[in-house]
């Protein structure tokens, strides 16, 4: 019998390609730094070209599509949103507009928004995965939960926001619970499906080897649901960003969304662009980070 040389990377890759995966879902959502740079550059170029066209057709082009230099010029204005501190007086208290203030305002907003998103998302993951496993393991619970879950998923999320403001006020708490609410259903459904899709042969094999329920859970169920779970969680993560931004846009104080809401009020297009830019970078970076983090757990699939 020939024995393949498993040390050669080429051979390993070839074997990997021919070996069938026991799972139908394979996650390939790794965002590389290069693809981000390419995407960002393309966006800038298209924007600038469009603004040049707009400048020839409209009377007040800077209110429709300002050019890139105009936008860059508005950066300093973001310091209006700095609430003061770190030896820098807030603009509303008579301080000057400074680049340092602008950077501080953006960074603080990004920090606030990220923390709210992470808190809500983490909570949704913990509750959602636990609930999903419990439901997924019981055929009866699965049938019972089908309707309620579909209903919850169909509710227009943003329309629910006033309810959260009513319960928690325009506070961080409201934002966190709103993110939780907006993502937990996705996490539960992904987990239920993942548990349901664990091939029976793996649990049978473990049982005939004498595995206890706990051993079955830890060494078979958890690793087996991971690939599908990862796809669902990535989706929930992007939802979480939309939810936190929505909450801040619609009343919750602080964070990038609240800054955005003020910029919209004053039709400050340049400021809106910067805020969106930071937001997009954060969201993309979080997906990449999540993908890297979970990728280590899924080395066996690669």
């Amino acid at each position, binding site marked *: 019998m020939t024995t393949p040389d*498993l040390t050669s990377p080429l051979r390993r890759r070839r074997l990997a390609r021919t070996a069938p995966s026991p799972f139908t879902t394979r996650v390939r959502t790794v965002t590389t730094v290069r693809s981000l740079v390419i995407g960002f550059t393309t966006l800038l170029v298209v924007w600038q070209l469009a603004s040049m066209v707009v400048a020839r057709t409209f009377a007040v082009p800077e209110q429709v599509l300002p050019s890139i230099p105009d936008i860059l010029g508005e950066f300093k204005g973001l310091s209006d949103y700095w609430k003061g501190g770190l030896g820098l007086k807030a603009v509303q208290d008579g301080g000057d507009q400074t680049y340092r203030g602008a950077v501080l305002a953006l960074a603080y907003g990004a920090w606030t928004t990220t923390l709210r998103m992470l808190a809500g998302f983490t909570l949704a993951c913990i509750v959602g995965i636990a609930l999903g496993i419990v439901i997924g393991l019981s055929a009866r619970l699965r049938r019972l939960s089908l309707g309620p879950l579909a209903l919850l998923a169909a509710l227009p999320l943003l329309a629910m926001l006033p309810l959260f403001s009513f319960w928690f006020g325009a506070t961080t708490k409201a934002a966190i619970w709103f993110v939780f609410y907006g993502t937990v259903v996705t996490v539960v459904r992904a987990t239920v499906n993942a548990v349901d899709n664990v091939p029976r042969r793996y649990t049978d094999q473990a049982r005939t080897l004498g595995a206890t329920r706990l051993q079955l859970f830890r060494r078979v169920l958890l690793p087996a649901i991971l690939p599908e779970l990862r796809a669902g969680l990535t989706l929930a993560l992007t939802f979480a960003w939309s939810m936190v931004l929505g909450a801040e846009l619609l009343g919750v104080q602080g964070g990038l969304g609240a800054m955005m809401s003020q910029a919209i009020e004053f039709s400050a297009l340049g400021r809106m662009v910067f805020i969106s830019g930071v937001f997009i970078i954060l969201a993309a970076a979080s997906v990449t980070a999540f993908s890297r983090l979970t990728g280590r757990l899924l080395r066996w699939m690669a």
Partner: protein
Amino acid sequence: MTTPAIELRDLSVVFNGEAGRVQALSNINLTIDPGEFVVLIGPSGQGKSTLLNVIAGLLKPTEGEILAHGEAVSGPSRERAMVFQEDTVFPWMRVGANVDWALKLRGVAPDERKALTARYLEEVGLSHTAGAWPRELSGGMRKRVSLATAFAADPEVLLMDEPFGPLDFVTRSTLHSIVIRLWSEERKTIVFVTHDVDETLLLADRVLVIRHGEIVDDLRLDFARPRTDDLRADPDAIAMRRRLLDQLGVVDPARAALAR
């Protein structure tokens, strides 16, 4: 008198599927002695795998009882480890870890597990793959990992459900000799399901023919071991092969013409 390894009494299995009531097994009575190599053969879909799953404890019989070494079977156990038809090597554990887990579940102390894992992998000729992921192995190699895992579980009875079905001839021959060697070294009871007559002649002490959910024939094969491919030329083996093929419902057109 020794306690039988497996004893089935008045065993019946009925499935209530979408197609209605299906009688998968009816009134099976069977005693398997310790150390026997029993082959269950029969056309597909007529109860072989169901019977094996019942013995494993993975499927509850509708009626009747199962005793393993005199004790009633209520669920799966390490004493009745199984090699499945499908690929059941856990892809998230490295090859060595798959074997190691079986040892751990058997209660082997951690410091002894490493040497034992190496030994079982060596038995199936896979020492060099301990650190590899299962996906890096071919189907035949993964089957050998399954074998190593099953023997590492050290069961009293080893159940094998068409384990080598989809493999090529050469790989199957290798695996047959590995099974026979491990069986004769460790004196396990083996219950092996197949629909392959040649595989049966090569492996079995005793053949049970299953058709329509019933045991229709119970034969002893006394051919000397080690059996080789030359068995095909043995007149007794040819007669036995003929008989089994008839049982499976294989009709040789030329022979049918002669009979007429």
